[in-house]
């Protein structure tokens, strides 16, 4: 089985978010970048398939040379090789087109992406790739097993979960649950050393239309201070929630 794991390179979850150039661009100054947490669960699940079912695991990112350390980290965790599509990931349609091209050329049976990336939170790329290629697609996937060309999965639904089955080729939008958090892999010294010798192929993007553009960023307005209520004055809290906030 050939697996492709889509890796998004995102600011670490604790990063302070700032903008430059008239608030038109994200300011990456001093920001630590990591593998998108949803993708990290997918990558570890892919490594499990590699170890248990002799799958090969390729990781891919659409991005500039600055994302290579993130791909190297994925290699250090155990991916066999990496591909970087050398383009600025401007719009989810554009990214999906690039990934679809990589998938077509590589003949992958299973494509694992995160259900959303923690920077733009679009949640669009995996579904778009599936639609472009006509692949089966499971979103918000929290469990996945594969036998021959059959897949069984669990996906989250509002207020519960759903067991589904399908066949390869398949693309999933994955998340926490694909593996236990305690089983997430972190690169060890040996992994880091071997990662240096693994192939990281850079490919040029294909022509693709762009339909959306982020034109301006803004931070939420500063909040007014919290209204504290004394612990022995619950009536006041109820009064505030009823008459001021009008939520009860």
């Amino acid at each position, binding site marked *: 089985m050939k697996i492709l794991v889509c890796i998004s390179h995102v600011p670490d979850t604790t990063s302070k978010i700032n903008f430059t150039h008239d608030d038109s661009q994200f300011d990456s100054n001093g920001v630590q970048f990591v593998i998108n*947490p949803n993708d990290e669960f997918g990558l570890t699940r892919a490594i499990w398939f590699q170890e248990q079912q002799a799958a090969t695991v390729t990781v891919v990112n659409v991005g500039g040379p600055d994302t290579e350390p993130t791909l190297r980290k994925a290699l250090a965790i155990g991916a066999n090789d990496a591909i970087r599509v050398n383009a600025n990931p401007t719009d989810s349609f554009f990214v999906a087109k690039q990934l679809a091209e990589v998938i077509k050329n590589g003949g992958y049976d299973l494509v694992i992406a995160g259900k959303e990336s923690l920077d733009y939170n679009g949640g669009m790329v995996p579904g778009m790739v599936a639609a472009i290629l006509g692949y089966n697609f499971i979103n918000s996937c929290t469990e996945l097993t594969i036998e021959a060309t059959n897949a069984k999965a669990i996906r989250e639904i509002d207020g519960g979960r759903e067991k589904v089955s399908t066949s390869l080729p398949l693309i999933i939008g994955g998340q926490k649950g694909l593996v236990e958090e305690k089983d997430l892999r972190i690169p060890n010294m040996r992994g880091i050393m071997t990662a240096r010798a693994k192939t990281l192929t850079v490919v040029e993007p294909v022509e693709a239309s762009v339909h959306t553009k982020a034109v301006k960023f803004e931070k939420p307005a500063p909040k007014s201070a919290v209204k504290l209520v004394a612990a022995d004055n619950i009536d006041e809290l109820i009064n505030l929630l009823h008459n001021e906030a009008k939520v009860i």
Partner: protein
Amino acid sequence: MSIVIYAESAEGKFKKIAFELASYAKKVAESLGTTVTAVSINTQDVSELSKYGVDKVLKVTNDKLVGFSAKAYADVIQQAARKENASVVVLSSTTDSIYLAPLVAVALEAGFASNVVGLPESYLPFQVRRTAFSNKAFNSTEISSDIKIIGLAKNSYGIFENTSNMATEDFNPTVSENDFGIKVESVEKGSGKVSIADADIVVSGGRGLKGPENWGMIEELAEVLGAATACSKPVSDLDWRPHSEHVGQTGKPVASNLYIAVGISGAIQHIAGINSSKVKVVINSDPEAPFFKVADYGIVGDAFEVVPHLIEKLKAFKAQN
């Protein structure tokens, strides 16, 4: 030209979000001088939509579509959008809609903006405001394709009555075998109580509650308020509560009107998931807990004393109101 919305339903009845979508689409339609068409799939009584400004319903009745299938539903919405010559398609941010939206976008070759939090900021060019960086910022996105798709964040616009003279039309889109590549084997719903996604009020507990045996008071508080229960990440990691209740950046987002956090510190990753809740109340014994910086109302106190009092007082309040 028209604005097309997908009016989601569950068990044959519209979800509340369908009315929010209708209210929103009506306003957009007014600005663009056009009408609102809703797509309903296997909803028995569609008349309720006329209260919220829908001009026409395309009523789909099809046994194959009784269970949700992202691809098939996307196919229906896409055909409806083409038939109505839609300029804007409005979808919601439920798990189902998030699943099918990108499929609709590709089929219509349309730019799609998810997590939209308000009416378009401008129509020429077409710009909408969305959340980004896990609610730590807003982002104005320009959509340049002919058809524009908007994924409206829950509770971001509100529901407004606006009675219309609604026409109902039976609609028979083609669905193919191809649409059913994913087979649903079984569905497990939570305990039958309110789900986090649908809830107007969410009561959430953190590690400050010390153990699963103390969740009775959280559940009781939720019950008095008709609220859903939720928790912080360590609580679900410790298996005190099911993973489906974990909210935050790596868990579920919450966009309720009221979020009550009990014994939760307010770590940045937790706050990221609840930022779009309107009113936040925090109960924490530590006056320095970061949650107080983002909360609207707070009580510094021991949850084990405050919550039982709150339940008692709320019961009395509910009895009178």
